[in-house]
């Protein structure tokens, strides 16, 4: 969706402000927000794609005014309501008003190292041959779904070239909306900076973006160069 999260190329946010000797957390609540987000993710009640969608679909003014752990906490609240694991009233008061809903598993302390070490690989067996190969020229589609997508706005309708074929991966666009993992080929695509940003763009900039096959079309055929003979006046 065209939400506030899609920031590439937006302007007016000011300078990057790296903090010298930045602490890992800015306050104890950030640790707790991280931990409950990861622990609830481990219950298997939603996918990472769903959780991203529940963060990016909050009102833009809210998204832009929150620190990132606040975005996570707010996203978690929305996921709990979305899945029926908790009600808005329970979240407001911090107390259960109804019995818990069943979850697939509860992460135990002893299992934390193994669960984190395993992670959540997203590669899947391919269900069809790859449409594109390294070196192919492609065009990204112009599309504006109201649902989750990982094709940034700044890279829509742009020409690029396939630099890597990563394999088939879970397609976030369907997975975020309970429509299945729909594994799709994932490509690393290189874009010329001026194709993205116009003639004022940095001439020595290229942007590499990982994009799924449904985001792509073959590049239009370039017109064949005119043969010099055709340019000669007819005798």
């Amino acid at each position, binding site marked *: 969706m065209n939400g506030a*999260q899609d*920031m*590439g*190329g937006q*302007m007016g*946010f000011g*300078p*990057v402000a790296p903090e010298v000797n930045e602490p*890992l957390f800015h*306050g*104890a*609540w950030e640790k*707790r927000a*991280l*931990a*409950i987000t990861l*622990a*609830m993710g481990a219950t298997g009640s939603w996918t990472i794609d769903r959780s991203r969608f*529940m963060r990016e*679909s*909050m*009102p833009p003014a*809210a998204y832009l*005014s929150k*620190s990132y752990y606040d975005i996570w906490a*707010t996203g*978690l609240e*929305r996921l709990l309501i*979305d899945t029926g694991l908790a009600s*808005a009233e*329970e*979240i*407001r008061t*911090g*107390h*259960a008003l109804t019995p818990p809903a069943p979850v697939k598993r*509860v*992460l*135990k*302390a002893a*299992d*934390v*190292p193994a669960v984190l070490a*395993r*992670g959540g690989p*997203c590669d899947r067996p391919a269900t069809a041959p790859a449409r594109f190969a390294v070196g192919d020229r492609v065009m990204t589609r112009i599309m504006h779904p109201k649902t989750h997508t990982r094709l940034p706005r*700044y890279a829509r309708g742009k020409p690029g070239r396939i630099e*890597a074929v990563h394999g088939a*991966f879970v397609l976030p666009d369907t997975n975020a909306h309970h429509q299945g993992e729909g594994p799709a080929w*994932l490509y*690393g695509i290189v874009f010329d900076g001026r194709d*993205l*940003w116009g003639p004022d763009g*940095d001439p020595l*900039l*290229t*942007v590499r973006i*990982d*994009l*799924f096959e449904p985001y792509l079309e073959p590049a239009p055929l370039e017109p064949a160069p005119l043969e010099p003979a055709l340019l000669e006046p007819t005798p």
Partner: protein
Amino acid sequence: MGHDHPHDHDRQHDHDHQHDHHHGHDHDHDHDHDGSALSEVALRVRALESLLVEKGYVDPAALDALIETYETKVGPRNGARVVARAWSDPAFHAWLMQDATAAIASLGYTGRQGEHMVAVENRPGRHNMVVCTLCSCYPWSVLGLPPVWYKAAPYRSRAVIEPRSVLAEFGVTLPDETEITVWDSTAEIRYLVIPERPSGTEGWSEDRLADLVTRDSMIGTGLALPADAHPEAAA
């Protein structure tokens, strides 16, 4: 589409945040470390945690174990060891560039937000930097949790359109003729930048080399420290 409205509590929060400053909370800081009032978000997160514990969805001991993992075990020291090995061992370097996931796993660094790794190498004339314009994708297994600036709007919006001015804010000025590739982490592939090895480090041990590898140099917003910056360098 039915997902783009926050629940009432959140809406109330935003209303308060924008129009009701007289209650005196500082929303940017967490004050529980000194016993004074908790910020609004800290209170929300505390309520959320109590609710989730009461419902039995999360185990408090697991929350502590998750936090401890990222406070003490997973951080940029992991990535620095990968880089130092790549600088020292040509066979490892070749493996890392060919199959970063496997090469990095061989050092014991696997798991969440590092399931699918790619290493990209800086060299004279070519600089790489990594961003996630759509959220905060970051190679946790080798760099730990991302710094605030990586997740914030200025970096996410500008890295792909004006990387040189972003680099300048980190104190990095590249030669005008250096090509820049910005890697936008839009899917589940995570990128680790291998910075250039500083001159004057021939024969150094991997441990000593790793001391020169900063977190930012592995994101591409910094360079590895020069040899004479090593803490044990002759004064």
